């Protein structure tokens, strides 16, 4: 049976919708909401396949940094995934809400440069981004995130940013290169993970509603 080289998921199981999850965050609310069952575990990728609103959704942990994130997006897109949300973490610099909804990313990473010239903007899909804003209203705010490859390195970015992370620029640019819709929601890595609790449960369901609503719109 054909399976994704790094993720280990059977190619035939890959659905149109996926949530990629930072390993610092709990996947329990997403798995509970989708009734997900583990379909593969390989390297840093733990994959659960479930159902939301009658549609299959893959929930996959993505390891650290842009390279394994790009591998996950590539392999899933090649197998038919069309819409993806990253639930990630970031170092918040200036964010008033518990989650940041990035409307663009500074491309301080190495990965995105291997997909598109630096002139290309690292931005989420506008329809998915707007749907996430509607569904998570009150818990999220817009801001620019600076994506870097080393979080505790010296930042030299001479512009105002809301947060610093390890994945968003690569997510947005790789998604554009593969022709899939992508967006992200990020929570502060400096505060305790609340994604296992009630707030995390609400956020997980909002992400799942955004995925199905945007996919239908296409």
């Amino acid at each position: 049976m054909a399976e994704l080289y790094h993720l280990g998921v059977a190619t035939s199981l890959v659905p149109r919708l996926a949530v990629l999850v930072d390993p610092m965050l709990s996947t329990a609310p997403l798995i509970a909401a989708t009734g997900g069952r583990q379909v593969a575990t390989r390297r840093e990728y733990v994959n659960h396949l479930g159902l939301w609103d009658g549609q299959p959704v893959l929930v996959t942990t993505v390891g650290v940094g842009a390279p394994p994130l790009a591998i996950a997006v590539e392999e899933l897109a090649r197998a038919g995934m069309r819409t993806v949300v990253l639930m990630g973490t970031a170092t918040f610099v200036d964010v008033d809400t518990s989650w940041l909804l990035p409307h663009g990313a500074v491309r301080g990473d190495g990965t995105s440069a291997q997909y598109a010239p630096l002139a290309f903007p690292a931005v989420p899909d506008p329809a998915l981004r707007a749907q996430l804003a509607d569904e998570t209203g009150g818990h999220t705010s817009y801001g620019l995130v600076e994506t870097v490859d080393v979080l505790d390195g010296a930042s030299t970015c001479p512009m105002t940013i809301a947060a610093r992370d390890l994945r968003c620029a690569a997510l947005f640019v790789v998604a554009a290169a593969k022709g899939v819709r992508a967006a992200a929601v990020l929570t502060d890595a400096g505060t305790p993970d609340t994604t296992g609790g009630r707030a995390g449960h609400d956020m997980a369901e909002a992400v799942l509603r955004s995925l199905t609503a945007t996919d239908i719109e296409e």
Partner: protein
Amino acid sequence: MTLATGPGAPRYALLPGDPGRVERLLEHLQDPVVTQHEPPFVEALGRVEGTPVLVAATGMGGPSVALSVGRLVARGVDTFVRVGGAGSVSPEVGFHQIVVASAAVRHEGASSHFLPASGPAVADPGVVDALLRAARAQGQSVRCGVVHTKDSFFGEIDPASTPLEDDLRSAWRSWQRLGVLASEMEAAVLFCLATRHGVRAGAVVKVNDVVQVDGAAWTDDDDLCRLAVAGMAELIRSDRG
């Protein structure tokens, strides 16, 4: 050339590139009055939903946008909607298609004066969503996505005429494969300038069907102007809360 410098500009500005489009935008505003007649920086005032709105032509290209919009920010404008023409990049984008820009490729020089090269030229999401709400309300079929901003018009429409033909064609294929919808000459600079100054900007462009060097051909832009003004009305209403 006259560039107005006085204080007292309203918060909201519509930005055509072509000064000739100022009059056509004014057809959709209340109490229109042209306040500066000399091209390229023709300026006019009117009202949308009773609120004063500036219509200010930017001229073509990043340097002209940087100069004119920079002055508008200094005069207190904090919400910009560019209303312009474009060429198609994606095979899925045909003549007369209206495109709302979510972001822009920075294939130009001026934006690097406002943001580092790694920064995104991205529209304000609130402006994007207002333009899309207006399009839905008007029943207009628009596309939303990334546009390409360039400094050389003829590098796009006639690459064979330039010494960089191979590079331009190769880059063009990359923009197509990255899903870029249309190409124009101002959005990336406007977005980077706005991000740098903490103000809101968006852009809506219409794909021209004819490029005619002698200048006779023209694409009707009434639907574009109506949409831009309706988008501004959406913003004004949502700012009132």
